[in-house]
């Protein structure tokens, strides 16, 4: 299992050498995961597709900077996508339109074509099951606070306001949640 843990690089060394076919395989393996993240952050298909493209262009140009000691290829890619997604979310100030856009996604998703191979899908669903079981042990309140920071880029003060909880409670909740998440990651590797 190499989902989020440190692992040997599979595609990026070849991508760094300029292999377009390795880049295509890299894209086919991870694009669905990254796109789901960007849709969750941006709640807007156009924005998500634009940032997805930026993310993979950056992966192509910066592939040689990937360090497998610090994490897996997907963790590296997710950190690029998340950072750019939050950047876009903040710069376009689209937070207020999230509710309106949410309904649109359903119809857009139905026209997508899946390039993922059968083997990729099997790996993905195995990973998904492992991740689900790892996250199942995180109490809902802790998970909610972490998700607001991770997917919406809110500060601890903003999270406290959103959840109508004291700031101190949120800080404690987030520290406990992160510790638990890290423990689960270690058990999961």
């Amino acid at each position, binding site marked *: 299992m190499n989902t989020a843990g*440190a692992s040997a690089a599979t595609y990026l060394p070849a991508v760094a050498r300029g292999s377009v076919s390795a880049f295509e395989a890299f894209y086919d393996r991870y694009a669905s995961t990254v796109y789901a993240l960007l849709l969750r952050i941006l709640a807007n298909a156009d924005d998500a597709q634009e940032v997805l493209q930026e993310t993979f*262009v950056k992966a192509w*140009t910066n592939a040689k900077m990937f360090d497998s000691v610090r994490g897996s290829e997907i963790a590296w890619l997710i950190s690029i996508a998340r950072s750019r997604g939050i950047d876009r979310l903040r710069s376009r100030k689209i937070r207020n339109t999230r509710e309106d856009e949410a309904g649109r996604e359903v119809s857009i998703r139905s026209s*997508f074509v899946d390039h993922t191979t059968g083997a990729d899908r099997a790996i993905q669903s195995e990973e998904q099951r492992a991740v689900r079981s790892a996250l199942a042990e995180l109490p809902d309140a802790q998970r909610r606070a972490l998700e607001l920071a991770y997917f919406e*880029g809110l500060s601890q003060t903003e999270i406290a306001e959103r959840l109508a909880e004291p700031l101190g409670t949120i800080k404690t909740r987030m520290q406990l949640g992160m510790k638990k*998440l890290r423990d689960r990651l270690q058990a999961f590797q």
Partner: protein
Amino acid sequence: MTHEETESIAALDALGLAGAGDAVVMAMHVASCIPCRRARDEYRRATTLLALDLEPVPPPRELRERLVESVRRAATRRRTSWWLSAAAVFALALFGWREFNTRSELTRLQQENAKLVSEMAALGAADTRTIALAGQEIAPRASAKVFLEPNRRRAVVFFHDLPENPGDKSYQLWIIRADQPEPMSAGVFDVTRSGAASISIENLPIATEIKALAVTLEPKGGVKQPTNTEFYVAGNAPM
């Protein structure tokens, strides 16, 4: 800074919630502390579980085609530019040092002039972003303003009300990057009695890779990595 404090900051940093000063202190600490660096990396990886829990959604096929096509073109350019670079070096050698030296002074003056003109343009460019750096405990009145041109990957930084640096020391500006563990030096500068200074930075990492900026006082001429955690000014770069 203790290991527990660093871990606590690392947990927040993984979610993008660490303050500028904390992020810089952590970056310096983990540069020489392997267990804390491991903790920092584990917290970062742990947050990716939140993303991996989402149901994958295949993106549109057209997007893949567009992307692969642009990558293919870039790969071709990469190969071509290698040959062009080699040809340029060869041509320069043929051109000869005598001619080169005669013109070098004129070129230098022209470059300086162009740099000044472009710096002025940077301040007024439509896409220029500003980042404010606030005075920290050691110099609460100090401040700095960074004018960042993301498209041209450069910045001009103006410092105000910094204490004059001793003759054997220099101020050094550090960039904390999201994609690298150690702080990156962005330049060394001196401050006179006026408290003011400015520096230009070229070849910046792109804006989304910059997490924070901070200034320390270092041995004259600067150092590869910060030797202390006393920040004069510091600030988070808006993501």
